[in-house]
């Protein structure tokens, strides 16, 4: 049987893979189920109110925000990805990784910073008044950063790296021969971009955009502060002001419909097209050298999002942190919070990557529909807003906690307390549920680059699935694993809603610390902690930016090259 891998696939050694997928799917499925149960208990009056007065406006704001952010991130992400892939210019080596940096700063912090800089009393408008001799804000018109357009620009600046990463990964491997044909036929750079590169990049754009839109949909801090009343904001209002968790859960379910629509659109956009580029010998594009002003222009264009998405906000934080350090107001507690952040994020990342490898490998080795469905469910957590997921996890986890506690008390006579929510483990589980999708997607896209014929050959030679994985797949998967791990790690460090809700007594991470200050209206007090988050996030982003394995692009399976999440390293 071993010689026939297509039959032997149900054979021995696959149990752990299925179990991993089961665990992953349960982690996402259980909170979703809990959410459904909560939503079911809603009063009709709440639902009527939401339907009449909340949803129309919340849907409109949400859709406008999504559209705007999609537009901004597309221009910034795809444009810069194209420039750094298709051209060689002075400074490219620096700017190409730097374009990922905005990933390291939490969105709501950037929103606070931009309001501080651009509001009527900020430096920009103060200078403007001084230049033109205005005395009051009433005397002139100026952009209002606390608005829907403001929110679109701010979120666009922070979220474009998702698109940049996926578009760049695709440009790098797929377009070479077609582009060269185009060039030979005399197409100019803009024509090439519009008629060859852009259509080619469509699947990658769809993928990156999905991540951007899910992040946008998830956001609560920035939207609320900037006065944009999205679905997420109305979930909060319904829950907290009207005391209706059930009503909130119902809006959350409506929001999940939006998510499903986004995911469906993404699948269609991705699935409809297949490309004729040779799957066996893809070559990286030979970049055109840009000299003189052209090179400077290319560099300048790429520096715009880096500056506004990272340098300016990080610089602001650094300046605020500096004044507080000089005033002697830094406390040693922050060292502990840094350690806690790294420990929680590190633990979660380890587990997520382990589980992600097992699930992606299971999907690969089993090639069955059930397994694929489990893997998809396990990866869905990323699409569920953090707060919703946290609330959904709270009840089952506390329930399990109580069962364990009561059981131990009956047996041993002493209660051990709540083991999951009483330790940091509940948070780790929440991270797992939320970010497993990133790992599965990244690793699946890595798998897609390994020809299935290798598996067949190995299996035909009598290797067990576990051996195929450890001896063949894992070494080849290394770059994808590393990049997925880094992205997961950064996201865990920034995670707020689940950490806030599920942490045990006395446990503080950098993110919760920053939030505590921000919620008093004193976000500058948290500047140092925020800066530490940025620095912790920066390390992996810089590591991920190393041009690892870029020279050896293994054969690629076009259809699966773009898994559900982004392939970070190309």
């Amino acid at each position, binding site marked *: 049987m071993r010689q026939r891998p297509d039959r032997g696939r149900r054979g021995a050694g696959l149990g752990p893979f299925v179990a991993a997928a089961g665990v992953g799917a349960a982690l996402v499925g259980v909170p979703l189920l809990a959410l459904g149960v909560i939503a079911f208990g809603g009063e009709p009056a709440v639902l009527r*109110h939401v339907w009449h*007065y909340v949803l129309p*406006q919340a849907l409109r704001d949400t859709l406008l925000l999504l559209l705007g952010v999609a537009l901004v991130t597309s221009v910034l992400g795809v444009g810069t990805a194209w420039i750094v892939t298709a051209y060689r210019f002075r400074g490219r080596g620096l700017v190409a990784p730097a374009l990922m940096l905005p990933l390291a700063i939490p969105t709501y912090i950037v929103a606070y910073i931009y309001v501080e800089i651009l*509001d*009527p*009393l900020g430096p920009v408008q103060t200078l403007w008044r001084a230049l033109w001799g205005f*005395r*009051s*804000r*009433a*005397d002139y018109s100026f952009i*209002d950063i*606390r*608005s829907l357009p403001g929110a679109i620009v701010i979120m666009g600046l922070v979220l474009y790296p998702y698109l940049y990463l996926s578009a760049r990964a695709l440009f790098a491997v797929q377009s070479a021969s077609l582009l060269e044909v185009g060039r030979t036929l005399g197409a100019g750079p803009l024509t090439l971009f519009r008629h060859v590169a852009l259509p080619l990049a469509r699947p990658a754009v769809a993928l990156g955009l999905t991540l951007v839109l899910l992040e946008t949909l998830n956001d609560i801090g920035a939207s609320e*502060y*900037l*006065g944009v*009343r999205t679905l997420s904001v109305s979930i909060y*209002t319904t829950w*907290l*002001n*009207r*005391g209706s968790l059930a009503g909130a859960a119902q809006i959350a379910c409506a929001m999940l419909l939006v998510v499903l629509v986004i995911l469906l659109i993404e699948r269609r956009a991705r699935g409809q097209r297949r490309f004729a580029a040779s799957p066996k010998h893809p070559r990286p594009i030979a970049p055109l050298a840009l000299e003189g002003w052209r090179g400077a222009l290319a560099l300048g264009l790429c520096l715009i999002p880096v500056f506004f998405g990272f340098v300016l906000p990080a610089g602001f934080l650094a300046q605020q942190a500096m004044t507080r350090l000089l005033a002697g107001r830094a406390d040693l507690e922050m060292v502990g919070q840094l350690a*806690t952040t790294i*420990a929680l994020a*590190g*633990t979660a*990342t*380890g587990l997520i*990557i382990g589980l992600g490898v097992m699930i992606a490998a299971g999907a690969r080795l089993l090639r069955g529909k059930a397994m694929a469905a489990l893997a998809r469910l396990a990866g869905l957590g990323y699409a569920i807003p953090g707060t919703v997921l946290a*609330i959904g996890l*709270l009840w089952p*986890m*506390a*329930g399990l*906690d*109580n069962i364990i506690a009561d059981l131990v008390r009956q047996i041993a006579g002493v209660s051990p*307390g*709540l083991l999951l929510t*009483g*330790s940091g*483990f509940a948070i780790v589980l929440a991270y797992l549920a939320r970010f497993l999708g990133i790992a599965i997607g990244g690793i699946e896209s890595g798998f897609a680059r390994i020809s299935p014929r290798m598996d067949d050959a190995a299996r035909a030679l009598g290797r067990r699935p576990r051996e195929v994985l450890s001896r063949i797949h894992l070494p080849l998967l290394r770059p994808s694993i*590393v990049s997925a*791990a880094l992205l997961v790690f950064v996201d865990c460090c920034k995670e707020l809603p689940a950490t*806030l*809700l*599920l*942490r*045990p*007594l*006395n446990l*503080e991470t950098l993110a*919760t610390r920053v939030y*505590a*200050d921000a*919620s*008093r*209206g*004193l976000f500058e*007090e948290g500047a140092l902690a925020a800066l530490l988050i940025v620095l912790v996030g920066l390390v992996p982003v810089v590591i991920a930016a190393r041009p690892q394995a870029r020279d050896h692009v293994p054969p690629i399976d076009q259809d699966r090259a773009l898994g559900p999440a982004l392939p970070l390293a190309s």
Partner: protein
Amino acid sequence: MRKFSWRIAATIAGALAASSSVAWAAEVNVYTSREPALVKPVFEAFTAATGTRVNAVFVQNGLEERVKAEGANSPADVIVLVDVARLANAKAMGITQPFDSREIEAAVPTGLRDPDGHWTAVTLRSRVVYAAKDRVKQDAITYEDLADPRWKGRICIRSAQHPYNVSLIGAMIAHHGEEQTADWLTGLKANLARKPSGGDRDVAKDIVAGVCDIGLGNTYYVGLLRADQNAAQQAWGQGVKVLDSRFQGGGTHVNVSGAAIAKNAPNKAQAQKLIAFMLSDEAQRLMADANFEYPVRAGLPSTRTQAAFGPIAADPLALAEIARQRRPASELVDRVGIDN
């Protein structure tokens, strides 16, 4: 990478297990939605005074749900919540128990605690009208005035769905009924200089910048701005004044931060002691001064807050009544569409 994280995992798991199983002579666990920086000094003073260790966690949204979900084995002893509506909600959810202490009853006026003894206010915060020092002559105003057309295009507020505003609107409903409050909100909306956004500090800044002349905010934000060591922030704080704001025939709208004993508190005696301590002269001053709030303890001598903003003439409306109006107020905000 994986091995490394496993090692970290084992280490924290061990550390956490160790820290949670160490039996302290006495300890008390606090779940708080009041920001840690504002309660920590009190907890430290309590530990210094009694030797009881205070374990705290800041949980903002969902604190009540968490205690409820944790059920019988919840470690929570004391629940500290900001906003009376949340305190009332905690009681309604059945996650609190009555304290039994004459000490508390003696210290706190009746209107500032639950009639059944499930919660008590520990600090008062007033919600008032800020005004531009240079452009607004008057020093007093009624909340009802905010709907007067003479303020057309001159008012700034943060989102009307923010709990601070919902509470004020709830009090308005308690005073004048829902219909009149709807008219008032409509008038207020017509007077807004800009769509509601930002926070109370942004309202103050917009007034200083000239976007609007008056706005709604909690008193303490002005105190905090003026006390900031950043000169620019001080200037913003100095650019606005706090008007003597009252309901017609009533007083200044106040909300509270308060405390309750959790239903399944494992250290009930300590919980009771901590709450009593929070109402002591020392703790009252600490908490009020930390954030320019007012003590709830009757007859406590002047604090930093009173020095800056004068004594408070709190609206006599019972807090529990304001809490009852939270949901109608929140729904009214949507119906009038004031945030749109």
